[in-house]
């Protein structure tokens, strides 16, 4: 009773503070109740057979089924990489606290499992839904194994003496995973499903970021030719819809290349995405560069730092930090834009949805209402996780902000 009294006061004050407030509360309450009812009825009565049968199709597209073990091995290797990265971040934070004479936080323990789940709950939800839709036990074993490996390697690295060289593992392991996936003639042309969306996003960011950074710096260069080229590039590719570039990449890129070179369609798509993203990233970074007070550069110059060192040590660390929200927004929209490759015939996750609904068994039964929410859930989980991680990063970097 003692607890209930303040709660009742809170409800009265915030939900039923007046006639209008009460009406809004009741109206929104009814709306939420109705949506929940429809959703629960859908989940309880819908037939998810199409998802159960096609889960592999949604995840990896037409990747040859006998070779699926490669995906499993790649997932496990990436789990090690993620675990190592997490452990190293923890170890370096503790080392820094130790050096600064601040209280050193404890290495990760059972409590951090709970924290990890809360931090990544959208992904956990997606994985749980996928596992509920599996027909065999293998994927469950794989996922549990991957989580186990991730946790184990993270805890191990957090406890081992910190060495900067361990980061090379984090860089090298994804390459190993790539080799496992692509060897014996299974280049990324054979990839599909959600795996292709994730690959295009990650590769697009990795390739476009350095180009975008160069363009942003080029736009502020004192050399007219560099500046003109950067402005022209940015304004040209920012003014064209991505879908146009994708179509051009598929149908026209060949015109610019020597005839011996005949890149696969995924490669061509990746080139188009990189070109497009670089222009946007350049503009995002330019915003960050402009937010920096001129006094920072003057102070660095007055200390005798060269232009390059000033850029690398003073300008970019601050400018890039300022661009985190816009940059992540850009990455999220790239992630979702990778579904546009469906328009040029690649079987990404969105396209596998149409492939599944046109299978003879499921054809013309209006099953898109089953498959599309699943696709939406996958993209939402990925996007929301990126957004949460960005906010976390912003908060952490907030230390020492002006």
């Amino acid at each position, binding site marked *: 009773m003692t607890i209930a009294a303040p709660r009742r006061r809170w409800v009265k004050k915030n939900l039923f503070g007046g006639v209008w407030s009460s009406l809004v509360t009741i109206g929104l309450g009814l709306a939420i109740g109705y949506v929940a009812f429809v959703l629960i009825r859908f989940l309880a009565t819908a037939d998810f057979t199409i998802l159960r049968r096609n889960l592999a199709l949604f995840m990896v597209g037409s990747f040859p089924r006998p070779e699926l073990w490669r995906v499993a091995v790649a997932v496990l290797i990436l789990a090690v990489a993620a675990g190592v990265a997490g452990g190293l971040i923890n170890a370096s934070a503790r080392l820094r606290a130790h050096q600064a004479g601040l209280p050193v936080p404890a290495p990760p323990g059972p409590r951090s499992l709970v924290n990890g789940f809360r931090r990544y709950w959208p992904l956990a939800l997606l994985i749980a839904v996928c596992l509920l839709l599996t027909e065999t036990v293998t994927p469950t074993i794989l996922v549990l194994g991957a989580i186990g490996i991730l946790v184990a390697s993270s805890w191990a690295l957090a406890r081992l003496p910190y060495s900067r060289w361990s980061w090379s593992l984090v860089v090298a392991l994804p390459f190993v995973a790539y080799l496992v996936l692509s060897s014996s003639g299974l280049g990324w042309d054979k990839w599909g499903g959600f795996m292709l969306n994730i690959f295009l996003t990650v590769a697009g960011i990795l390739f476009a970021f350095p180009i975008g950074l160069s363009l942003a710096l080029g736009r502020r260069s004192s050399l007219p030719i560099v500046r003109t080229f950067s402005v022209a590039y940015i304004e040209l590719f920012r003014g064209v819809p991505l879908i146009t570039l994708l179509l051009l990449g598929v149908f026209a890129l060949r015109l610019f290349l020597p005839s011996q070179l005949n890149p696969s369609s995924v490669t061509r798509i990746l080139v188009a995405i990189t070109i497009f993203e670089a222009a946007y990233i350049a503009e995002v970074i330019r915003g960050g560069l402009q937010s920096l007070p001129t006094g920072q550069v*003057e*102070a660095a110059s*007055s200390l005798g730092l060269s232009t390059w*060192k000033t850029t690398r040590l*003073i300008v970019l660390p601050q400018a890039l930090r300022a661009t985190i929200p816009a940059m992540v927004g850009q990455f999220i929209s790239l992630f979702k834009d990778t579904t546009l490759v469906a328009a040029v015939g690649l079987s990404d996750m969105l396209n596998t949805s149409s492939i599944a609904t046109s299978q003879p068994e499921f054809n013309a039964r209006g099953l898109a209402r089953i498959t599309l929410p699943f696709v939406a859930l996958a993209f939402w989980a990925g996007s929301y996780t990126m957004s949460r991680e960005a906010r976390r990063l912003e908060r952490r970097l907030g230390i*020492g902000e002006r």
Partner: protein
Amino acid sequence: MTDPKSQPMIQLEKVDKFFGSFQALRDIDLVVGRTEVVVVIGPSGSGKSTLIRCINRLEKHDAGRVIVDGIELTDDVRNIQDVRKETGMVFQQFNLFPHLSVLDNVTLAPRQVRRMGKDESEKLAMKMLTRVRIPEQARKFPGQLSGGQQQRVAIARSLAMQPKIMLFDEPTSALDPEMIKEVLETMEELAATGMTMIVVTHEMGFARAVADRVVFMADGQIVEVGTPEHFFTNPEEERTKLFLSQIL
């Protein structure tokens, strides 16, 4: 033994500076001797800041010559770097690097420009922070310090390059009144060590107590130069008298 103040450290000869069609400096002639402390005063927009910013090439002068410790400032980047290594500058807005700790702010230039090792540079930095009396703040970030403390870190940061010249561009103008004193005291101590200094300031008490010479500027020109006694008690020019009557 000759007086070091008779040996020129900074020479400005017929220096002009334009911003577009606006002439910020007009025919500036000034020689500052070794270990000399020169205070520059004048109404806002008179070209005081522009004058000292031409000495370490934050502004490029359009005509005349600027010679710092025997090095003439030209378009040659090496000359500019050499002059900047010898010239420290303290800004009105402190301009500390907010993403670096106080210690890293101070060690940055010795490590990057002088190629000093980590341990050596940190020892030097702690020495400089002790000199400005805030060694206990070394691990903090600039945003966690008061304005006066930040400005003293900025002084330590410049001193860590072991410059021969220190330029101060209104170092106390952005400070709350109670913090001005600690910064002025630090500057006074620095002057006592024989540092060559040019100080743009509105602190007339500092000018009186510390300056070897006071330079009065108006409209981009040097109107009057003299010792503090002469300058504050018996100014010759009408402009100077008017200015002093407004601020004193």
